[in-house]
């Protein structure tokens, strides 16, 4: 009964979404204020309906209602409750429902926070979001209904894929989707701006926090996914350039570009068309990511779908959204006039360079991800593009980007002299060159790549320090720094986060040690100055699996530090084996052990890694996200809202 109610709510939500999409947009065209005013209540109603549907599905999981096909496929009565609830988005249908729920949530947030915006802008924005929602409602109702019942009710469910039975996977998909779907707001605002032909500083100021919020979620989502891959897949890798990872990385790259171009558009009124195009691209790539993951064209753990109808449906949806918005862009963008000029060397140019580099980086990822699919689809053979391609291409593109990240804040708007820029940053440059050359020796051995990476890290850090110092000097001493706007600190924190991330990438890559050996009871293995001793293997039962646990003593200079317990699990319902690595994490190094397979005679294959500074990768991502949060908390956005309110009131009076 509950499941049918959920299904019914979804059908109602589709109707509401259609009305929410059509009425306000028609009202905007015909100047009908009552139709426009429909937008906000429709957004609220839709959120309630989708939330009820989501709750109904969660209820079915909590109650082990295996008469619902989706529950039977993705849950099991022996599965712990927290995994039963996260199993709601553990499969295709449920994760789409989550997508729609988050879209409805973002739309509701727009409806609640859009007080100061002109009604026509609000109506258009919510209308566009309604059309997107209607497309996805139709998708879920016609091809992937999560509430479908089974005629013969199985006594037991098939269980959640063991890879997904993990804390990281409870949070990773919602975070990632919050980011994906969040870009729909920037997209809808861009479409509304195109439709009205008006794009002013107020529009940009209003778009910025939405874009930043989506970007923060996407950053956290990607970082969580990467950390999960690191500890769960048992290979010690943290980024595989897997098409699914790339699908989330592409919107992130364009979203990062968008954040920066929005800053230019707000402050200087230039690059407007480019900003609009980025907003459209960021959301299109989010949709493309959804298509790649959900259509089954990719075959990995993420691709649950095997029904070709789904692929076709979502492809049509993708083409409609991207096609319609690009046509609108082609027709209306020439009317959006950019004002202001800027010199060849100015902050505008630095931000433009950032945008170009990020866009090119995104294009290279796009090529490497989609080319094999295109070749396969055309029947021209089977090929794959591996990590070496991405590493050789992506690395060199990041070098100028990282170099410019440090310089950008030092440049003034409109015009900067190169000599002045050089004078301001020469100390930082000397420091970074010296440190970049010296540090690799301190770490053991010199490698040009590590030196280059550490040079860039020190360069960013030192330039940031100099910038803060000169700001303090200009505004009257260190206490004045506290009065700097939050977005100022947000920017620096995010840039430092990037530097921290680079430390992790470069140092772990440069100095990691990997050993793969046969180990029997009592054998020892030396790695990175540590020693690992296999004490023994024992059986250990789990709630829905049985495990073989290795007891491995980690010691240094004869002193026992910790006992590591990597596991090999076999899940009852699927008989699927799973490797659970054991990690001794640390600020300057991780020791990572996983067990492979029994080799006979009591020996096992064991993988061990010494990974220096690897945790800095995710620490850096966390700092970037915190920087975004700080920027979001900036008073300016709230003041801007009050100011806009005042001006709307005045406009109403006049």
């Amino acid at each position, binding site marked *: 009964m509950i499941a049918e109610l959920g299904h019914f709510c979804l059908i109602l939500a589709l109707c509401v979404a259609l009305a929410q999409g059509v009425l306000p947009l028609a009202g905007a065209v015909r100047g009908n204020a009552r139709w426009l005013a429909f937008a906000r209540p429709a957004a609220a109603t839709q959120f309630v309906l989708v939330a009820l549907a989501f709750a109904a599905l969660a209820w079915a999981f909590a109650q082990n209602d295996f008469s619902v096909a989706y529950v039977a496929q993705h849950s099991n009565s022996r599965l712990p409750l927290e995994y039963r609830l996260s199993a709601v988005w553990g499969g295709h249908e449920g994760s789409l429902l989550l997508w729609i729920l988050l879209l409805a949530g973002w739309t509701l947030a727009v409806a609640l926070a859009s007080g100061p915006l002109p009604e026509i802008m609000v109506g258009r924005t919510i209308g566009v979001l309604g059309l997107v929602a209607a497309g996805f409602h139709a998708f879920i109702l016609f091809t992937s209904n999560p509430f479908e019942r089974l005629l013969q009710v199985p006594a037991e469910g098939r269980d959640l894929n063991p890879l997904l039975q993990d804390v990281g996977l409870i949070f990773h998909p919602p975070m990632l989707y919050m980011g994906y779907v969040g870009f729909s707001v920037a997209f809808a605002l861009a479409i509304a701006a195109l439709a009205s032909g008006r794009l002013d500083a107020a529009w940009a100021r209003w778009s910025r926090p939405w874009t930043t919020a989506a970007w923060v979620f996407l950053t956290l989502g990607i970082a969580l996914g990467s950390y999960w891959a690191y500890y769960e897949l048992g290979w010690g890798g943290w980024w595989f350039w897997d098409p699914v990872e790339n699908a989330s990385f592409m919107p992130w790259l364009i979203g990062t570009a968008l954040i920066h171009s929005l800053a230019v558009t707000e402050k200087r009124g230039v690059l407007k068309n480019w900003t609009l195009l980025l907003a459209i691209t960021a959301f299109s790539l989010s949709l493309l990511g959804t298509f790649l993951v959900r259509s089954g064209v990719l075959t990995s753990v993420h691709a649950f779908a095997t029904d070709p109808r789904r692929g076709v449906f979502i492809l049509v949806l993708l083409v409609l959204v991207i096609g319609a918005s690009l046509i609108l862009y082609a027709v209306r963008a020439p009317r959006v006039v950019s004002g202001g000029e800027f010199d060849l060397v100015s902050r505008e140019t630095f931000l433009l360079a950032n945008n170009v580099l990020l866009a090119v980086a995104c294009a290279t990822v796009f090529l490497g991800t989609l080319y094999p699919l295109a070749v396969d689809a055309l029947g021209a053979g*089977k*090929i794959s593009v591996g990590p*070496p*391609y991405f590493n050789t*291409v992506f690395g060199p593109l990041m070098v100028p980007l990282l170099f410019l990240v440090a310089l950008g804040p030092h440049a003034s708007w409109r015009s900067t002299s190169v000599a002045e820029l050089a004078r301001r940053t020469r100390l930082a440059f000397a420091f970074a060159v010296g440190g970049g050359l010296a540090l690799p020796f301190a770490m053991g051995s010199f490698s040009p790549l590590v030196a280059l990476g550490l040079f860039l890290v020190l360069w960013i850090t030192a330039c940031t320090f100099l910038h803060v110092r000169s700001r303090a000097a200009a505004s009257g001493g260190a206490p004045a720094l506290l009065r700097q706007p939050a977005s100022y600190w947000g920017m620096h924190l995010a840039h430092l986060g990037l530097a921290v991330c680079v430390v992790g990438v470069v140092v772990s890559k440069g100095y990691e040690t990997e050993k793969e050996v046969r180990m029997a009871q009592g054998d020892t293995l030396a790695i990175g100055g540590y020693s690992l001793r296999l004490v023994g293997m024992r059986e250990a039962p789990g709630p829905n699996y049985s495990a073989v646990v290795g007891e491995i003593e980690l010691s240094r200079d004869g002193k026992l530090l910790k006992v590591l317990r990597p596991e090999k699990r076999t899940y009852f319902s699927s*008989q699927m084996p799973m*490797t659970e690595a054991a990690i001794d994490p640390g600020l300057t190094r991780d020791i990572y052990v996983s067990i492979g397979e029994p080799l006979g005679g009591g020996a096992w294959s064991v993988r061990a890694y010494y990974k220096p500074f690897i945790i800095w990768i995710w620490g850096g991502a966390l700092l970037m996200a915190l920087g975004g949060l700080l920027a979001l908390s900036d008073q300016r956005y709230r003041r801007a809202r009050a100011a806009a309110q005042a001006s709307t009131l005045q406009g109403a009076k006049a």
Partner: protein
Amino acid sequence: MKPRHKRLALIASGIAALAITAALVLNAFQSNLVFFFSPSQVAAGEAPRDRSFRIGGLVQAGSVKRSQEGLSVQFVVTDTAKDIRVAYAGTLPDLFREGKGVVAQGKLGADGVFHANEVLAKHDENYMPPDAQHAVDQAQKAQKTLRNP
């Protein structure tokens, strides 16, 4: 500089940067494309000798042999028509099973043994790597055409 010159400089440097990037990207792309061959194709001599490629098919039942020392292992990959011997050193993936689908990447040795540096079996027990499935399908189609000309 006059504004016109500035714009020219901007455009020229932009084009130069794009050209360099494009050259870099395409070069890396060219040298890192990994092609896929089925055991039948390898047996027919279509696979390259000097370059890394992928093979796929089923792990032949009873063919997996672990050496007594170290981690080297040998097994046979078949597309049900032709077989190819594969040598690998290291831990095999969790879902590597006899009779199940597998994809391996590596080089073909002069002895006809495929020296793999990477072995992939995917994340789900029901799931067949599409490349492996493709190899088996192709081989069975070829056999059918031979039987009923």
